[in-house]
């Protein structure tokens, strides 16, 4: 991939540039002089809070080169415009209007380079009615439907994967990369660049599959009730839950109606071990989920199945699910993932060298396998100003001038 991408984002948009960098694009992370504030996001390597040790920064800034540049002074703005001439895209996540104030908004950059694509990632978009509201990953996950997916109805609601992983921001970063890719290809058809507006709220709305609850409410006035909810597909119904087993938890989905034969397979196994109780008398595919399933029945089935799962380990249950063909997966943590046979067989995890830490760290590797152009971490995230000399040199700024720019706070 031959693109050059200027990445001005903070944590709201890190992932976008990483996806291009891992595909081989020349992504230049531009930080404020002295380094971005988002370098102070934990967790930290060996728990040492240091701007060069943020694991969040490491995770989502791989395969980027890094420079420092003060965009709030004229000299910095001039340098930025020079960079824009050499670039295909700018990705940014400032408040709406901030870059315009600096004379670096889309209209201004388009004059410098008519082919430039500017991708703006903000909580509520450039024009949305909420655009001046204060927002963060938590509030966005709440208003976009994600919180209402996790927890127990009326008792709790939870962020997807906790506060530290920032799923709304990751969704926005990834969907911004999609939009940017469409616009990059669009230069062949439209013969011009464009401005892309990526609201994080809408990104999380899709990430939470919120069209489903919206349409459920519009069509049937039903509201999903999170935990243990029956999900109906015509006359078939499934319910899903986590179950305790001998050495941890598994997650299973039990069907009646159309896909009831999966449940029959599980119950046959339970019966072989004398633990099926009255479940063996049920005609699982024959049950009409719309009429024959009450909360009480469901609780009973779950209790019988739960008792059986307690007699087996995660591995035994998973193996049986594969061999017998019913729906069950282990509830994994990172430790389990690193030992997962499927991921091991596909050489998923990679070692990334961090020479200044005298260490190398294990990262999730390529998000997909492909015959050509497989994305991969090419090198670790940049240190503060690591590539100043290299990149400013390419622009023709002499080392002597770099020293002066550094002293005046431009870089």
């Amino acid at each position: 991939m031959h693109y050059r991408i200027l990445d001005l984002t903070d944590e709201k948009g890190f992932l976008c540039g990483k996806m291009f960098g891992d595909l081989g694009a020349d992504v230049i992370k531009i930080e404020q002089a002295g380094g971005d504030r988002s370098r102070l996001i934990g967790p930290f390597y060996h728990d040492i809070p240091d701007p060069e040790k943020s694991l969040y920064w490491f995770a989502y800034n791989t395969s980027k080169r890094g420079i420092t540049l003060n965009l709030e002074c004229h000299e910095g703005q001039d340098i930025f415009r020079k960079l824009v001439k050499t670039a295909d895209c700018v990705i940014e996540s400032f408040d709406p209007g901030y870059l315009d104030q600096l004379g670096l908004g889309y209209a201004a950059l388009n004059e410098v380079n008519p082919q430039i694509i500017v991708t703006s990632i903000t909580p509520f978009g450039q024009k949305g009615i909420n655009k001046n509201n204060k927002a963060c990953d938590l509030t966005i996950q709440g208003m976009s439907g994600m919180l209402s997916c996790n927890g127990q109805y009326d008792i709790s609601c939870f962020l997807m994967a906790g506060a530290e992983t920032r799923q709304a921001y990751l969704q926005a970063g990834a969907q911004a990369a999609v939009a940017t890719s469409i616009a990059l290809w669009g230069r062949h058809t439209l013969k011009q660049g464009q401005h892309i507006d990526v609201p994080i709220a809408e990104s999380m709305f899709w990430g939470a599959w919120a069209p489903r609850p919206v349409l459920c409410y519009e069509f049937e006035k039903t509201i999903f009730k999170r935990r243990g909810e029956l999900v109906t597909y015509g006359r078939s119904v499934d319910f899903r839950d986590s179950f305790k087993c001998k050495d941890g938890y598994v997650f299973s989905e039990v069907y009646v109606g159309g896909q009831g034969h999966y449940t029959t397979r599980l119950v046959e196994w339970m019966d072989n071990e004398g633990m099926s109780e009255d479940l063996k008398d049920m005609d699982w595919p024959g049950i009409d989920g719309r009429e024959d399933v009450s909360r009480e029945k469901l609780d009973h089935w779950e209790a019988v199945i739960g008792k059986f799962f307690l007699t087996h380990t995660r591995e035994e249950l998973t193996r049986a699910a594969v061999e017998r063909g019913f729906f069950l997966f282990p509830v994994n943590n990172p430790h389990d993932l690193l030992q997962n046979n499927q991921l091991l067989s596909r050489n998923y995890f990679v070692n990334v060298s961090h020479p200044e830490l005298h260490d190398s760290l294990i990262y999730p590797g390529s998000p997909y396998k492909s015959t050509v152009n497989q994305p991969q971490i090419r090198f670790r995230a940049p240190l503060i100003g690591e590539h100043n000399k290299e990149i400013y040199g390419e622009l023709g700024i002499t080392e002597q001038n770099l020293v002066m720019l550094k002293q005046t706070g431009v870089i």
Partner: protein
Amino acid sequence: MQSEQCLEGIKVVELSAYIMTPLLGKILGEYGAEVIKVESKTHPDVFRVSSPFPDGKPGVNRSGLFSHLNSYKYSISLNLTQPKAVGILNRLVHRADIFLDGFSPGIVAKWGLAYEDLSKVRPDIIMVSGSMQGQTGPLSKQRGMGSLMQAMVGFIRATGQADQAPQTSLTPYPDFISPWYALVGVLSALEHRRETGQGTYLDISQIETGPQFLSSMILDFTANGRPVSSTGNRATFASPHNAYHCKGEDRWCTIAVFNDDEWLSLCSAMEKLDLANDPRFSTFLARKQNEDQLDQLIGEWTIARSPQEIKITLQKAGVTADVMFNGDGLSQEPYFRESGFCETIDHPEMGRITSFRSSFMLSENPVKMQRSPLLGEDTEYVATEILGMTDEEFINLLNEGVFE
């Protein structure tokens, strides 16, 4: 339809069901690609027969699950038990730029469409196989769904509170991660083909895309050996930082305070100035230490108020706060309507339904909402206009039951 769109001229054939791969096709179509979904009346996309249906009345053309994942597509219905239907499928795929395969690993090979075979005929084709666990490896054929894969990938363990049983999640979350990687991959493959004439095969799976969204947590384990310590909605960087129960059944708001000034603003907005001077909460570290009491006190204030009222009061005071929406709130929230993200459109069998565009907006490529196709709605068009069959050919094949 506007005159020019970004992906105009790109031909896509989609063989898939459920979410992950249909969503790929939908977004390519939304930006101008010609997307043909090959369907079957005897084995329709499971989502075509899944609720919700308008007024609760089922029908293969009435599913709300199907409608928002399949707009911008042509639908042709083929009976693939017939060799001639397989021939038509092959013709469609052979003329395509992008072939989206969302079936379980091994299925499309039956029709001669495994990449090894396909690339002999069309070395420049871009083929995407989307699956749970990838096309190779010991668990490649394990039965699964995104709703369960989120346990496998690590999301379930990381959600909720570590000292409680893992939470189930209603959303099949990894289904909404894979498509983004696949789309970026497909578009970079198009660029690569433009430069080299070479095609690409992408094997994309939820088990490999999912952990990308947990990378920092995985690094915390590989670098620091720290097991997941899920703390619900609480954060190491803000306090309070939680969802609070408000007045009414399952009504909630979210509140996040990032510094001491915001804390004072919150106290004054809650009209609890005594809290502002309370040493248990006056600094960030103090609030973290006494977070149970803190959350309880805030909860006592929120339970008497509506989430909307709280949002307005706190935003005015400069505190980050919002409403937690369920289905009813999401469908009524003006924010999602005013930007054109949600729009009500007409559908011949569903009536007036809400439709959703992608999250992003491109300044030079505005999109127009389009409804999803009826099952087999475009069979004749695809056969005669796209494949160039004569009317006679088409009718003969129709009589032979090749088109369902």
